[in-house]
């Protein structure tokens, strides 16, 4: 602080005596994630009770976690974007594009068939995926922040364009040689006996993102821009630069998701990601992040990714008829957010 009016505080800030205790309790009760988290726990308990032989098995838990990993990466990126009051519809296509670029790079480096390629090629492939994702993220960011085109239009455009570019590169045919080493280590390997490597990677990235969003200046600026971007600008925050960084980050995470998907499926699955955007947005909103920006947590998005995943798996195990499944999923989603909403309104009806 430049001036020094820190003279004796003759009227100290008024505080309730039992502040720390109250604060913790009310913070927990009011936090966005507790109620949706509870819904997740209840669902798991329910399906475990219904099919104890199937739901609570190591196999099922591993599978749930592994298969959610790429979507989790998308949702983590989406959390940042939505907190800035933006949106990114392009993540699924960027995932595909990054996967294609990565796979083609690895193929090219191995002379056409990457199946037996080593770690050097794999590392370059990873970099290619991240760069491929970053490029689209950067483009989105520039158009949103510099050209000031609404994020919905920009990313709807790149949703089509990234997929088109991936199809142009491959002529629509999946690239199919992926290094076996990559598949058996990152794709399907486990560490510590039971923990899938994909899950470890996803967890590390998620923890890093939590750290970034909740404890650093980068995160603070993300919230500030979503809360009032004009105030952020006037406070000297480089709003344009920050928005570009956020969209690029989301692109990089989509690129990583593309690489993970490549490792897991062993192919580029070009035509299979048209719902990823809505799925990841739904996860983020389900986790309590506001579409109007300024509010949200990564933990919430994690919960938001797993509620539909658990539901889908549980319904299949419980033998719910397929056409009933979307109806039941819809009802649970709405109910989960309703509980959360009611709780928050009771606490603070501003």
């Amino acid at each position, binding site marked *: 602080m430049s001036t020094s009016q820190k003279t004796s505080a003759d009227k100290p800030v008024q505080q309730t005596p039992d502040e720390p205790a109250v604060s913790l309790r009310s913070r927990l009760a009011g936090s966005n994630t507790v109620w949706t988290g509870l819904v997740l726990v209840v669902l798991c308990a329910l399906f475990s009770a219904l*099919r104890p032989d*199937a*739901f609570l*098995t190591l*196999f*099922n838990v591993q*599978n*749930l976690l*592994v*298969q959610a990993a*790429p*979507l989790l990466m998308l949702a983590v990126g989406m959390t940042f974007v939505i907190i800035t009051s933006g949106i990114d519809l392009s993540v699924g296509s960027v995932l595909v594009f990054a996967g294609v670029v990565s796979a083609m790079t690895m193929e090219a480096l191995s002379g056409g068939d990457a199946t037996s390629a080593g770690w050097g090629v794999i590392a370059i492939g990873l970099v290619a995926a991240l760069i491929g994702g970053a490029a689209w993220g950067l483009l989105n960011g520039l158009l949103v922040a510099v050209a000031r085109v609404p994020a919905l239009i920009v990313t709807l455009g790149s949703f*089509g364009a990234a997929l088109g570019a991936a*199809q142009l590169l*491959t*002529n*629509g*045919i*999946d690239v*199919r*040689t992926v290094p076996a080493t990559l598949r058996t280590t990152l794709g*399907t390997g486990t560490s510590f006996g039971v923990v899938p490597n994909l899950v470890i990677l996803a967890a590390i990235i998620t923890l890093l993102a939590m750290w970034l969003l909740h404890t650093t200046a980068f995160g603070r600026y993300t919230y500030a821009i979503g809360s009032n971007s004009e105030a952020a600008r006037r406070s000297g925050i480089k709003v344009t630069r920050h928005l570009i960084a956020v969209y690029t980050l989301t692109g990089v995470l989509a690129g990583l998701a593309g690489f993970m*998907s490549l490792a*897991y*499926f*062993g*192919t580029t*699955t*070009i*035509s*299979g*990601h*048209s*719902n*990823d955007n809505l799925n990841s947005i739904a996860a983020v909103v389900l986790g309590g992040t506001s579409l109007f920006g300024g509010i949200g947590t990564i933990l919430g998005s994690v919960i938001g990714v797993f509620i539909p*995943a658990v539901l*889908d*798996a*549980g319904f*299949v*195990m*419980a*033998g719910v*008829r*397929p*056409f009933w499944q979307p109806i039941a999923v819809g009802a649970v989603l709405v109910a989960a957010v309703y509980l959360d909403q009611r709780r928050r309104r009771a606490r603070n009806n501003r």
Partner: protein
Amino acid sequence: GSGQIGGTGGQTDPNNKNLALITGQRGEPFYVSIECAAQQEAAAQGYQLNVQAPEKFEQAEQSQILGGIVASKPGSVIIAPTDDKALAAPLQQAKGNGIQVVEVDTALEDRSIAVTSLSSDNYAGGQLAAQTLVQLLGGKPGSVLALNTKAGTSTTDERAKGFEEEIAKHPNLKLLPTQYTENEPATAAQIVSSTLAANPDLVGVFGTNLNTGEGAGTALSNAGKSGQVQLVGFDASPKQVDDLRNGRVQALIAQNPGKIGQEGVKRAIAAIKGQPVERETKTEMISITRDNLDQQAQYFYKSQC
């Protein structure tokens, strides 16, 4: 007064050198293979071929594309109708504008519109898949699962239906409810994992198209069940053939897109010139397993034109 849209009569100009091909979905290997063959044939005969495809296997966008094609007046349109009823009206308009309609892969219910159709019998394909699966199982009892894409997709619905009805003839096999994957491999993988967890007696899976087979293969190999649970896929894109070769998939039901594309163009040209063409041809479906892999190489789809 009242009338009908596009009711303008038109005669086919026998010298029209323009053709159009509208496939069912952009970037689908099966359709890409049709396209490659068609392009080759058209070029060989000195015709221009405008190839278009909707982004998804949906009738609305396809009929919009068809509108654009009709307006640009090619001599013939070769089309894989995404809906055997919904495309009747727009194709009728095409016909009314003097454009010869050639159906490939799928066909309209109304037989009076196209001059010829080279359609695959998807129901029979599903049956063939079931028969192949039964053969692979060799009498082993257990549950089997079909993975459909999206409800209402005519081709995969037919395949699933053929499969279900054929499996029903085998009382030692328990048919689980057909699941829908939204055409996402991740969803397919997740459904197969969950089914494995819930039904340890799962012995066979039928993936009705590329993406569902992809997801199922991944889930099975992840669970260490490749080869134990028999997986029958549909189509023979390079990746799928690889999977068959290395044991992720045990059988593929393949069509012959190269032949369809080539023959489609030939018949379109004949129709433009007013030559007679065969009205109806059912294209063959064959089952490829590891045993007959090498004999059937001509059915493998192309990845490059």
